[in-house]
């Protein structure tokens, strides 16, 4: 893509002043300001008053990148990585504290569906209101009015106040207005999280067409499949910094591996406060009993959990496992209460709990395994993401082909049959 740069971000930074004294309140009360002043007046010299500590917090720091015309860029990162701050600066809601952004062309940002919708107003009035808020002129809205109404499928309710709309209709109308903006640059935040699956699909389709029309799109989402489907380039943010800038698949891989590494690394920190640290070590072994990180597709593995209860004795030791997929979230779970071991586990205070799988029913990809240890019905310890398990492609079907990982994480191995009827 050889379009010229339409967004140029140089050394962008945004800082917020946070007060340690009143972390939960963002605004000041006049009462407090006045009493502080009075206290200051009445205080005698010599006694120094500890000022409320304030500190600059950089939500975004030294971020630089260019976006060329027609590019569709996905912005990803964990919560607090600075995605929203970046979008807020690009859409001018807040000013940068450092650096600069240069933009060519009209920007429309969609940080929320239905911003400014008023329940008392009719669908028709809200279309004009919302359109104006999103930056359309009255003439433009008039020109596209019929299209908007058709897309939202609310023809019959145009003159009904939107407070009588079903939530589905409300969202459809709101998205329809936004979808018919004709900006050169479209900034979209996690707005697709609303609405039913069918509608989400239509929205994605609409955005795809916007992108195909040569317009530039910046897209933030936690729905990684949507990012993968829509964008060609990715920006990965981590704690206010630009960590990676490259093709979508490259950046998504970097993101999921950083997630799992971080999870594995932070495993001991990720323990909930109630957990008693019994789990000392978690090992993954392949079917030959060798320690590994990679398991071949369709093959089995063994998970060993080393526990040390110190003085505590587990009367009825319980082991639980939850398998998480990097995109789909938790996908499977089992424990020794629902599927008891062949012979009941005896009380112990330290030892090794082992789970053996003859075959893992998952397709190639990266999985995180949470380990749970309990005593009877009581949970004692858990290590979320204790184990990173990579399932690598293998000729599991003997056909030289592997399953599609885009169709979900479950490995299916059916026996087919055909019966001819004349």
């Amino acid at each position, binding site marked *: 893509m050889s379009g010229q740069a339409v967004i140029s971000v140089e050394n962008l930074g945004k800082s917020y002043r946070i007060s340690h004294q009143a972390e939960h309140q963002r605004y*000041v009360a006049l*009462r407090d300001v006045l009493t502080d002043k009075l206290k200051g007046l009445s205080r005698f010299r010599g006694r120094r008053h500890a000022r409320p500590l304030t500190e600059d917090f950089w939500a975004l720091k030294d971020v630089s990148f260019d976006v060329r015309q027609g590019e569709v860029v996905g912005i990803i990162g964990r919560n607090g990585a600075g995605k929203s701050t970046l979008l807020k600066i690009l859409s001018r809601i*807040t*000013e940068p*504290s450092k650096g600069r952004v240069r*933009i*060519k062309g009209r920007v429309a*940002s969609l940080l929320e569906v239905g911003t*400014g919708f008023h329940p008392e107003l009719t669908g028709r009035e809200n279309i004009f209101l919302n359109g*104006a808020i999103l930056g359309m002129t009255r003439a433009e809205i008039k020109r596209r009015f019929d299209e908007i109404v058709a897309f939202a499928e609310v023809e019959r309710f145009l003159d009904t106040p939107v407070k009588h709309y079903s939530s589905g209709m409300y969202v459809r109308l709101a998205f329809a207005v936004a979808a018919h903006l004709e900006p050169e640059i479209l900034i979209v935040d996690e707005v697709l999280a609303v609405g039913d699956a069918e509608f989400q699909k239509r929205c994605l389709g609409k955005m795809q067409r916007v992108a195909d029309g040569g317009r530039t799109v910046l897209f933030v989402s936690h729905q990684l499949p949507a990012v993968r489907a829509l964008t060609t380039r990715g920006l990965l943010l981590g704690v206010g910094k630009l960590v990676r800038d490259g093709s979508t698949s490259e950046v998504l891989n970097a993101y999921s591996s950083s997630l799992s590494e971080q999870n594995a690394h932070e495993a001991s920190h990720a323990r909930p406060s109630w957990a008693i640290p019994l789990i000392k070590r978690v090992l993954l072994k392949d079917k030959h009993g060798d320690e590994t990180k990679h398991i071949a597709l369709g093959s089995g593995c063994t998970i060993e959990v080393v526990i040390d209860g110190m003085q505590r004795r587990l009367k009825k030791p319980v082991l639980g496992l939850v398998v998480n997929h990097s995109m789909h979230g938790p996908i499977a779970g089992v424990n020794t209460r629902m599927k008891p071991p062949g012979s009941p586990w005896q009380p112990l205070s330290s030892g090794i709990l082992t789970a053996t799988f003859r075959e893992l029913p998952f397709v190639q990809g990266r999985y995180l395994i949470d380990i749970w240890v309990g005593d009877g019905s009581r949970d004692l310890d858990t290590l979320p993401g204790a184990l990173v398990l990579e399932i690598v492609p293998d000729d599991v079907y003997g056909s030289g082909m592997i399953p599609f990982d885009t169709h979900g994480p479950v490995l299916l191995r059916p026996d087919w049959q055909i019966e001819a009827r004349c």
Partner: protein
Amino acid sequence: MIASSSEIARDLQEPVFDLTLEPGSAEKHYWLDLWRYRELFIILAMRDISVRYKQTVIGAGWALIQPVLTMVIMTIVFGKVAGLHSDGAAPYPVMVFAAMLPWMFFSSALSSASQSMIGNANLISKVYFPRLIIPASSVVTSFADFVVSLLLLIGLMSWYRFPPSWNLLALPVFIGIAFLAALGLGLFITALNVKYRDFRYVIPFLIQFGLYATPVGFSSTVIREKLGEKFFLLYSLNPMVGVIDGFRWAILGKNSPIDIRSFYLSLLVVALFLGLGISYFRKTEQGFADII
């Protein structure tokens, strides 16, 4: 220094950007932006007006009942009970109503402007536009009520067979001053209200207090007669004194001569508040999205 050919080529292609965002950049195009967003301003004002008249069952009736009842009470309390005199030969109710118009507009503009930013918090944190639009459009909304009660004044004047003079042609000027007075103080209070969230408890009191510090139920000449010339000039520091005297001069004609010094004084205070309001609002505006 020798630039490589590719660098030169890149320099030639250096794109032209039409918007630069950097610390303090919003300040530069402030008034231009305000002009660009004029349609949004109109639509927001229309929204507030249409919601206001849809929500109350009596709709426009409310804009009529409120000033009429207040006018009746004030006529009884100040005209009958306290026995204060009217301006010249003007009927007391007409004199009161001529002041009720700008006062009700002023007070409702102040209270709705001060609530407007918090009422539109979701807009402010999700979309960019010059924030000045929000309190300004709520002042316009109060202006709609003002127009409705203006019709009422016409009815009242024909009821009392009190014909207007040519002075009435100057009324738009005083309406303009009333508008600027409401906008200036409104912006100031709005900004304070976003910054200090407990300031809103002070506003109803300020308005209540203002009603008695303003010659609504009585003529401003009463103040001069009873409290002296010096106090009257001090009294004129209340910007609404000049506005109300102007309204009465325009509506009641020669019955209500205007004191030009006091009028200029009020005008000066209006200008001062307008400047102060706009500059304070703009100073705090940048942070609104971060603190609201």
